[in-house]
């Protein structure tokens, strides 16, 4: 498998190398290490999982380090040479992920330790990048060129996704509650939300173009930067897309509160407000937050389309990269999005767990 491609400059196709061709004999040591892990898997020792993770993490870090060094050597001839990652590298990444996932799926008293070691890989990778080890790799090079723009885009991306989810929650949670309290309004509320969800984002921009351009003519809105294109249509579209998951989960959350429980609360003399605050809302909360989580994951990915209408965000890199046929520029946009999604997803899962645990 070819793990890298060395290109004379950014766009031209280059020559591909296997790990052995690229790094040389030390890679055999790493390979031998992984063979050792395979042998280890036959043993039944208690520490097996932990040892697998420790050796795996160590070997992978060594491998990254070797790749960095070789990259510097390969690029030493000319300034415009770029080293791009190829299929082989991604497959290796996937295999490491599978290996770690397999080990951690087993409940083991060392699980926390295993997780922190896996996290160490990330940290060492960041350290390598920071030390300039990967400077010749094209993702890092692209980053180097677009550094300022990157931070800007990241902030915009966060603003777009977190902002629209917050805004969407403010609208959808009351709507969901309304649908729960007034059964007659349920379809009147839920059906439009489902319809909005089915409109493709590009057509939604088309629909939004006219009214937002109209709003932009009013001074107040123009000073906010609201125009037919730009961040405003992206923000509105993303907000609209969050309404269904949040609204539906709010409705479901409240509906799952049992009738008897509410009746008992009434029978004990709780007022409507007290029932909402002490009984219904706390019981529905984990499900509502699950809705917010779904919306957030969906929005962080969805915010890419803001790049299409000049709304900024990491989508800018993705579409620019596509236009320039530069795979690494696309990755510069996609990788942070994936990481962001994972982090936000995990955080909200922890929040939900906290709420559930507090009950037990």
């Amino acid at each position: 498998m070819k793990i890298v491609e060395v290109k004379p400059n950014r766009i031209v196709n280059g020559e591909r190398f296997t790990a052995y061709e690229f790094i040389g004999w030390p890679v055999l040591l790493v390979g031998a290490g992984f063979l050792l892990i395979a042998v280890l898997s036959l043993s039944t020792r208690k520490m097996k999982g932990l040892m697998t993770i420790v050796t795996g993490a160590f070997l992978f870090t060594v491998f990254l380090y070797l790749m960095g060094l070789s990259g510097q050597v390969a690029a030493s001839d000319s300034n415009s040479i770029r080293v791009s990652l190829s299929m082989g590298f991604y497959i290796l990444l996937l295999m490491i992920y599978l290996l770690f996932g397999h080990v951690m799926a087993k409940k083991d008293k060392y699980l926390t330790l295993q997780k922190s070691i896996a996290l160490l890989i990330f940290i060492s990778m960041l350290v390598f990048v920071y030390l300039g080890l990967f400077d010749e790799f094209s993702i890092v090079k692209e980053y180097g060129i677009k550094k300022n723009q990157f931070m800007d885009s990241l902030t915009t991306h966060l603003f777009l996704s977190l902002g629209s989810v917050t805004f969407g929650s403010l609208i959808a949670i009351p709507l969901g509650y309304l649908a729960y309290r007034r059964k007659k309004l349920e379809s009147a509320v839920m059906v439009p939300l489902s319809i909005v969800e089915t409109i493709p984002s590009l057509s939604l921009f088309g629909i939004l173009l006219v009214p937002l351009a109209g709003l932009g003519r009013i001074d107040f809105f123009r000073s906010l930067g609201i125009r037919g294109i730009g961040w405003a249509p992206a923000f509105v579209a993303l907000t609209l897309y969050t309404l269904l998951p949040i609204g539906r989960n709010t409705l479901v959350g409240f509906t799952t509160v049992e009738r008897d429980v509410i009746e008992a609360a009434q029978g004990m003399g709780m007022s409507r407000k007290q029932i909402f605050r002490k009984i219904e809302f706390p019981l529905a909360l984990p499900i509502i937050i699950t809705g917010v989580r779904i919306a957030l994951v969906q929005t962080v990915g969805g915010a890419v389309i803001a790049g299409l209408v000049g709304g900024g965000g990491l989508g800018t890199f993705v579409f620019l990269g596509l236009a320039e046929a530069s795979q690494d520029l696309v990755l510069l946009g996609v990788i942070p999005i994936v990481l962001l999604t994972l982090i936000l997803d995990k955080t909200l899962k922890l929040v939900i767990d906290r709420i559930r645990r507090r009950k037990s």
Partner: protein
Amino acid sequence: MIKLVDVYKNYEGYEAVRGISFQVNEGELYVLLGPSGCGKSTTLRLINRMVDRTSGDIYVEGEHVDNFQVESLRKKMGYVIQSTGLFPHMNVEDNIATVPLLLKWDAKRIRERCKEMLKLVGLEPDTYAKKLPKELSGGEAQRVGVARALASDPHILLMDEPFGAVDPISRLRLQNEFKEIQKKLKKTVIFVTHDVEEALLLGDKICIMRDGEIIQEGTPEEVILKPKDAFVEDFFGKEGALSLLTRFKARDHCEEVKMEGEALSEDASLKEALSEMILRGVDRVPLENGSLSLHGIMEVIRGEHQ
């Protein structure tokens, strides 16, 4: 204490309650008994205004229920329902604390009251206070339900088939324990059930309902021995008379005739004593201090007939 005067409840074209009047005196356990759909639950819910009546008057402690703010009316009465209705996100202690908290008792008093209530219903506070409802058995959950209803020490208790969803063995124990609690606390209780045995065991007075009307009202002895019509007679069945014996304890009818053999518990009811006689094929069973005879049981029955 509680008085209903000619109360009706119509649900769009269907009359659930048709002109009911009765009065419950202080410290009395009043049973509303009848087949399902007879309007007994609705009647109960009319009293704490969970259901609004169509016409008629209801008085609680001499005051018309309409004169109360509905929440404060409900806070005056403990309310126990079949499915317990415990709040699943609160532990046992917090569940019991619900009404005291609404009444703004201070924290220390609430904590002590919770302990006291758990002990009253036979649950060890240290073991149970921090448990969640889902960790309780059906019987335990219902005990907590009763404890919660009694927590603010209301004068009145409304109970809607409270032991209906519990297995038969736990039910009998709960019924006996509740009878003891009631003997101690002397609450005014309105108790809805379709279980004849339960009604006869617990009730000071029994009110038999059918199709939203009262058919007969009276003490357990009266309704069993002098049924007003065929419906009441059928409802109790031929064994109803036997169930009347559950109201009497063997202890109270013990004779000073010493007897060998395995002694029956003094807490046993006369019905249990009678079936013990049938099982052993004798007309006298030993108790811890003395014995009980078939003749003694017949004396009780004779007394009831007079």
